[in-house]
C-alpha cells in the first residue's frame, strides 16, 4: 500500500485478515491506522461525554484530549427522556429497591416484576397481544429474526436495513436478499424470485443514516400480494411518529397489516434494550428460540423501571413530541436556507450530505468540533462512498437559540467551505 493511496482505503478493506497468525491484525492495517490522517478520522470515535447527553454538554475531544463545552447534535435522546427528572427519579428509587443488575437470564432469575409490567405496557402501547424484551436493540433484531426464520427460508430486506437485521439472517441460517431502498417494484421482483419459500420482509420506520421513512402502504400492498408478512423495525420512529407515538404504522394507519413490530429503547425511550411485539403465540415461540434473549442477562431492573416512567411521560400527552417536531421544522428550515443536501430526510434524523471525499468530510468535522459542535461525520462504509455525510439527531430539548447557534456554525464551517452560501 503506497502512502499516497492510504486515504483511499477504509475500514471496509481490512475485514479479511491475511496474516498467518490469528493474533496478528492484517499486515497493512497497522500502517493504515497509524497514519496521522487516518488517526484524525479515528479520533472522532469513542469521544467520552463528561456528563448527561443534553444539548449543552462537555466532551473530551479525541484529537486534543481537552474537555470542551459543545452543542450536542449527535445523541439519540430525541425526547430528552434520558435526563427527564421523573425518569431519573424512577431509576433512583428502583435502584434502592432492586440493586444494580438483574443477576440472571430472563428465563431463570433475571425477570423482575418491572420487566413483566413493562412488557405488558409496551404491548398495550403498540396495540399488540404480547411483547418480549431484549438486552439491546442489536440483540433484539438478532434474536427475533433468528426465532422467526430457519435454513431454507428467505429474508427480504430493504438495502438500507441495519446490521442487526443482516446478522439476524446469518444467525438464523436463512438466505438473505435485499431490494432497492424503498422501491416496491424491486421488492415485488425479489418476492417473485423466491416464490414458494417461506419469506419475511423487513423494513425500518426511519432509516438511521438518511432519516427518510419507509413507504409502508406501497410496501404492504406488495407484501400482501405475495402473502408475505412484514416485520418493521421502529427503532428511530417509536414515540416520534403517529398521533400517540406508536410509530410509522400509526402514522400511516396500517397497524393491522404489519406482522411484527420491533423497537429499541435506547433512542426516544432514553434507556437501553430492544423489544418485539406481535401475537402472543408468536412471541412465546420467539422467546424459546432467540439465543440473544435466552443467553443474555436481563436488563437491569432499575433501567426498566425508568423506561416505564419514560413511556408514561411520553404518552400522557403529546407535548414532548410536539416540541421535537417544532425543533425539527425549525432546524430544517435553517439548513435548507444554507442550500445543504439533506437527502430524503422526513424525520428528526437529518443528514448533511457532503460528497465523495473522506478527507474533506474529516476536515469539515474538525472545524465543526473546534467551533463547539458535537456533530459526528459518517464515513464510508457506514454510508455510500459518494454520499459521505454528517448526521444531526434533533432533540426536543434543544432551544431555538441552540438551533440558531448550531446553524450559524454549520453555515460557517460546512456550507461556506462547500461553496453553498456566500464566500468561503
Amino acid at each position: 500500500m503506497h502512502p499516497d493511496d492510504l486515504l483511499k482505503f477504509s475500514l471496509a478493506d481490512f475485514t479479511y485478515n491475511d496474516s498467518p497468525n490469528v493474533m496478528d491484525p492484517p499486515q497493512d492495517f497497522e500502517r493504515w491506522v497509524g497514519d496521522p490522517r487516518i488517526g484524525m478520522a479515528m479520533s472522532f470515535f469513542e469521544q467520552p461525554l463528561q456528563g448527561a447527553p443534553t444539548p449543552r454538554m462537555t466532551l473530551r475531544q479525541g484529537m486534543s484530549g481537552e474537555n470542551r463545552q459543545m452543542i450536542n447534535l449527535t445523541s439519540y435522546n430525541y425526547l430528552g427522556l434520558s435526563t427527564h427528572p421523573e425518569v431519573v427519579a424512577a431509576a433512583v428509587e428502583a435502584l434502592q429497591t432492586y440493586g444494580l443488575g438483574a443477576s440472571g437470564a430472563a428465563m431463570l432469575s433475571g425477570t423482575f416484576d418491572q420487566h413483566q409490567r413493562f412488557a405488558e405496557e409496551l404491548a398495550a402501547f403498540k396495540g399488540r397481544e404480547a411483547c418480549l424484551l431484549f438486552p439491546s436493540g442489536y440483540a433484539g433484531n438478532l434474536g427475533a429474526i433468528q426465532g422467526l426464520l430457519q435454513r431454507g427460508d428467505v429474508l427480504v430486506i430493504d438495502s438500507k436495513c441495519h446490521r442487526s437485521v443482516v446478522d439476524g439472517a446469518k444467525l438464523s441460517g436463512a438466505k438473505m436478499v435485499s431490494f432497492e431502498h424503498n422501491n416496491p417494484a424491486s421488492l415485488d421482483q425479489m418476492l417473485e424470485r423466491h416464490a414458494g419459500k417461506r419469506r419475511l420482509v423487513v423494513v425500518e420506520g426511519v432509516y438511521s443514516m438518511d432519516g427518510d421513512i419507509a413507504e409502508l402502504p406501497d410496501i404492504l400492498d406488495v407484501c400482501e400480494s405475495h402473502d408475505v408478512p412484514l416485520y418493521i423495525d421502529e427503532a428511530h420512529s417509536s414515540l416520534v411518529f403517529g398521533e400517540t407515538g406508536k410509530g410509522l404504522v400509526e402514522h400511516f394507519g396500517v397497524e393491522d397489516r404489519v406482522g411484527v413490530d420491533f423497537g429499541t429503547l435506547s433512542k426516544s425511550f432514553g434507556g437501553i434494550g430492544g423489544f418485539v411485539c406481535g401475537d402472543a403465540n408468536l412471541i412465546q415461540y420467539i422467546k424459546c428460540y432467540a439465543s440473544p434473549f435466552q443467553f443474555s442477562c436481563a436488563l437491569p431492573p432499575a433501567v426498566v423501571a425508568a423506561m416505564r416512567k419514560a413511556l408514561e411521560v411520553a404518552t400522557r400527552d403529546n407535548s414532548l413530541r410536539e416540541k421535537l417536531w417544532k425543533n425539527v421544522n425549525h432546524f430544517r428550515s435553517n439548513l435548507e436556507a444554507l442550500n445543504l443536501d439533506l437527502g430524503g430526510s422526513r424525520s428528526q434524523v437529518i443528514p448533511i450530505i457532503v460528497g465523495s471525499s473522506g478527507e474533506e468530510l474529516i476536515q469539515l468535522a474538525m472545524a465543526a468540533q473546534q467551533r463547539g459542535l458535537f456533530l459526528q461525520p459518517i464515513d464510508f462504509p457506514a454510508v455510500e462512498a459518494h454520499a459521505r455525510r454528517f448526521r444531526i439527531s434533533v432533540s426536543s430539548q434543544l432551544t431555538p437559540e441552540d438551533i440558531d447557534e448550531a446553524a450559524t456554525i454549520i453555515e460557517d464551517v460546512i456550507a461556506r467551505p462547500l461553496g453553498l452560501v456566500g464566500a468561503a
Partner: protein
Amino acid sequence: MSKAMDKKEVIEIIKKNLKENLHDVDVDAIEPTSSMRDHGANSLDMIEVVSATMRELEIRVPRSELSQIENIEQLAEKFIEYL
C-alpha cells in the same frame, strides 16, 4: 498472478468465485453485463466474491472505488487497473 491477464480471464475468476459462494448459480448463464445481485447475491456474498477474487489476483482495490460498479464486467475492468 500474471499481469498479462485479460478481462475475459478476470471475469472467469469472478464467475468461479460467485459459483463458490452462491452454489445454485449456473456459471454458463452469467453474462458479464449482469450484476451479482441479479444472480441472487446479497451484500455479504458480494464482499466474499470480491475478497476472494482480489486474493487470487494478488491486488488490493479500495472498496470505496467499488461502490458504484454496476456489473461484473465493470468489476473486472476495475481489477485490471490494479494488475
